[in-house]
């Protein structure tokens, strides 16, 4: 799994390389719908994480207390479990 964060409005890996367009597109797409869903559940505080599982691939990202976006994508151990553990949820 490759980790990434948001810096100055761009999604970057630890190496400083930008994430793939697929990952960037997924983050934007899921963020849009996560906000809609939060509204349907009357969760005024917005969303805290979103993820997607498909054959051979996972993506998970969360918003930390400071509002920064942290994410993982790719294959391997479950990114969902890892990120939830790290966030202390």
């Amino acid at each position, binding site marked *: 799994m490759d980790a990434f964060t948001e810096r100055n409005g761009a999604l970057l890996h630890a190496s400083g390389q930008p994430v793939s367009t697929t990952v960037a597109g997924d983050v934007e*797409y*899921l963020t849009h*719908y*996560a906000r*809609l*869903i*939060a509204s*349907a*559940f*009357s*969760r005024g*505080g*917005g*969303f*805290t*994480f*979103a*993820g*997607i*599982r*498909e*054959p051979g691939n996972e993506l*998970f990202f*969360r918003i930390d207390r400071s509002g920064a976006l942290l994410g993982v994508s790719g294959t391997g151990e*479950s990114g*969902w*479990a890892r990120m*939830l553990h790290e966030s202390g*949820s």
Partner: protein
Amino acid sequence: MDSDLLSKILKPLIDLGAVAGVSVFDRQRALHDSLPARDAAELRKVLWEITDGYAKVGRQPQQLAFGFNGSGLLVCSGTHHKLAVVLHAPDQLEIAGRAALAVSAEIEREWATLSRETNGRKSARVRLLRWQDCEPSLRAVLSKVLASAQAERLIARELADRKLQKDQPTDVPQLRAFSESLLAHVPLKSRRELLRAEIDHYLETLQS
């Protein structure tokens, strides 16, 4: 799908104790719904919209997850249905996510079995339809404006002209064409229309 069967399939997921609500739904309706959402119907529509967006680019997500303050939402996608699960706490996401995938796969299997059985019954009904089964009904309809013996002669002549045996199989399109030929022998237009409506009704009963 039978609600008892669905409840049985959902039980292992609900028994996890982490689940605040579940919905199983297709595009038309919810087969089971206990989601604690302000507008569950709107939420279901949004969830279809998300996966439809992925389908347009050739992707089929097995599962989506969304977290909010103190809760989480899991969504599993089958060919025919979606399973949405609201969790009490997001730390149950991984365990509930695996359980939800297993439950969703079982719903999909049951759905496929039911579809096969339903289609099989429809095919069997069509295979069993023969001219001799339909003749009495057609005769009864024609007898509303013609003498019974005349109606019987008309049908017998039409069968002979088409070289049809009474024990041969037929179907609704053939019966419709056959009926139109019979109606051509009914003199008044108003009577023809009356009989056409009766025959249409009869043909609909064969398809239901």
